[in-house]
């Protein structure tokens, strides 16, 4: 029942948005709808936490610890972004601002994006999961070019074509996994339900599963932004309106990583050793971190900078997943930290960019003085992002290294730290130069921020520091349970 509700809210929201006339009402609808979805997701999460996995519709819809965790994260970030979106579009210059028609379209797409992501997490059937994943691409492509200018269309086209081509490989991977079962046809419609697949994994043809998994990693990895398939990511993140960038980076990538997670237990059961799959993940993760490091060093656009940070952090999460059970716990912890921190960073970067009228970091200086809330927030979130304690990301990276070392991955851990260090050097310079110095004289006196904006920035920062020094017991239990689903007990 609750699962159906989760699926229904976005659909209803999308339809409602199309019916509403005024843009203010659309934004109210966005906030209300995503708040409702977040509440239901939290309730569902609580049920899962209390009673274990739940399902509906003959097991096609299901929610277990892993997907419940991701669902709560998705809906939470979505709620924040919806709140932020209203503020953001209110501050856009007149030429860029949404009119009623555009707002309606934005609202409908926004809800369908939410719905398709919820679908990815709710479908227990990996085939339908793929379909939902592909529809996130389709739903979000138009969100990127909300303002249809040349750059955003270029970015959206790259996003659309690369992600579609990549994801279609994921479909092929699903086919291979399906074909690897001893008798794929016999299982009928439930053949691709995840619990069944895991149960049958021991008897699967390992060679086919391996091919399937490689296809899967490349396919979903494209969507997740793993190098060298990440190329669409900086373009899309930088050109999308900031609330969309925040959702992209904050949760869309997580959904892709979630898809890969789902296949890990199947691979380790089918190949008889967990190491094979993990090695591939570690390789991709490290490559992403290295590539991100290179491009962060030479970046000039603040949103592209954040986008490459996403590449880096997806790499970190992937490496964590490749480091075994303890690494999975850390990777999930990191997923949470990255989502909160990155969306905060995007929120701040977006507003700072609006204030300066540019995203070029060389033209942004003294932002901490020029717009105290967002400039300071940008600096703080960048510091957390590059791994300064007591930010939560420091701790999760430490835990990943710990998992790597205790798993004997010395070389990988060393490369991991080296890549983090390169990113640190590059990004810190950008962060310092943006936050301090003298603001340009042309800026008019800052408008006072709404208390809602202040509260948003402050609460997210506080959360990041809080979880950096203390993980609530419930949260760590969630990580443990979800990690057990990925990496086995």
């Amino acid at each position, binding site marked *: 029942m609750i699962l159906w509700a989760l699926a229904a809210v976005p659909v209803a929201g999308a339809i409602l948005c199309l019916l509403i006339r005024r843009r203010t009402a659309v934004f109210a609808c966005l906030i209300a709808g995503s708040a409702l979805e977040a509440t239901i997701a939290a309730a569902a999460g609580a049920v899962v936490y209390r009673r274990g996995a739940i399902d509906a519709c003959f097991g096609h819809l299901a929610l277990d610890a892993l997907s419940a965790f991701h669902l709560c994260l998705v809906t939470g970030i979505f709620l924040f972004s919806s709140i932020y979106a209203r503020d953001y579009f209110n501050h856009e210059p007149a030429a860029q601002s949404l009119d009623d028609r555009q707002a309606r379209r934005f609202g409908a797409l926004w809800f369908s994006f939410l719905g398709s992501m919820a679908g990815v997490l709710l479908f227990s059937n990996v085939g339908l999961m793929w379909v939902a994943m592909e529809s996130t691409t389709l739903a979000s492509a138009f969100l990127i070019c909300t303002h249809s200018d040349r750059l955003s*269309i270029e970015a959206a086209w790259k996003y659309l074509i690369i992600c579609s081509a990549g994801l279609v490989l994921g479909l092929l991977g699903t086919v291979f996994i399906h*074909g690897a079962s001893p008798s*794929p046809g016999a299982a009928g419609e439930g053949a691709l339900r995840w619990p069944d697949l895991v149960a049958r994994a021991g008897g699967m043809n390992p060679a*086919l599963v391996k091919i399937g998994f490689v296809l899967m990693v490349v396919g979903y990895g494209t969507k997740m932004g793993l190098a060298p398939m990440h190329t669409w990511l900086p373009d899309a993140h930088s050109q999308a309106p900031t609330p969309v960038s925040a959702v992209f980076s904050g949760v869309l990538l997580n959904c892709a990583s979630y898809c890969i997670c789902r296949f890990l237990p199947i691979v380790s059961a089918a190949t008889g050793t967990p190491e094979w799959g993990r090695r591939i993940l570690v390789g991709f993760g490290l490559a992403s971190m290295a590539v991100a490091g290179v491009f962060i060093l030479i970046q000039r656009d603040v949103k592209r900078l954040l986008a490459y940070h996403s590449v880096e952090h997806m790499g970190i999460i992937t490496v964590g997943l490749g480091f075994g059970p303890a690494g999975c716990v850390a990777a999930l912890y990191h997923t949470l930290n990255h989502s909160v921190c990155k969306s905060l960073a995007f929120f701040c970067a977006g507003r700072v960019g609006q204030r300066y009228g540019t995203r070029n970091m060389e033209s942004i200086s003294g932002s901490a003085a020029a717009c105290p809330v967002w400039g300071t927030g940008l600096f703080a979130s960048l510091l957390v992002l590059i791994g300064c304690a007591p930010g939560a990301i420091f701790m999760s990276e430490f835990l990943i290294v710990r998992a790597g070392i205790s798993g004997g991955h010395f070389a990988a851990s060393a490369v991991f730290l080296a890549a983090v260090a390169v990113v640190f050097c590059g990004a810190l310079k950008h962060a310092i130069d943006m936050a301090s110095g003298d603001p340009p004289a042309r800026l008019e006196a800052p408008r006072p921020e709404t208390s809602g904006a202040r509260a948003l920035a402050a609460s997210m920062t506080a959360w990041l520091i809080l979880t950096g020094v203390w993980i609530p017991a419930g949260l760590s239990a969630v990580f443990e349970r979800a990690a057990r689903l990925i990496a086995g007990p």
Partner: protein
Amino acid sequence: MTGEFPAVLVLVVITNFYILNTGRYVNSVRSIALQGCLLAVLPLPEALAGSPQALFLSAGTLIVKGILMPLILIRVIRSTDEFRVAQPFLGPVASVLVGFAILAAAFRAGALIPAPLRPHDGLMGAVGLATILTGMLIMVNRRKAVGQVIGFLILENGILILSLRISRGLPFVIEMAVLFDVLLAAMIFGGFIQSVHETFAHTDVSRMRKLKG
């Protein structure tokens, strides 16, 4: 028994080569339509064996891949005036030769794919693989947006063939969902190409290179 249609499979390969060779997008789209119709034949034996789902699947494939998607593409081509294939990175002759190399490689690699179901049937796997690779080649090789979409559709067709070879097709619901998804994708691609055309006055995506680094 599905897939006992060597002639159909050979025709699929020939359409691939034709698309690689042709200089006009309308011809490519016609071949895509033909390919869609050919794919619709593949589930027929199962449908004749009394599976209504296979019949639905066949009909769905025919409607979506044989009719709707080509129509969408033709409309896009008409509205954007992009009839001719812009000079690709590899010329038509080179493309065909590479296509041939792909085919040869696919026959070699198709034999490498372990097939628990029917160890002796090499043709279907090879053709599926060749079609996938051809789709990739076209996506990489064509400059214009329509060309890339055509490549994507061929890639998708290849996956369909290969899935029949590997696992006798995915479960019905999923196949239908995928079909629907692909249709949606084609529509959105179409819409996008139109806005690209409106904004840039051309659809040569290899010239959209403002975003880099």
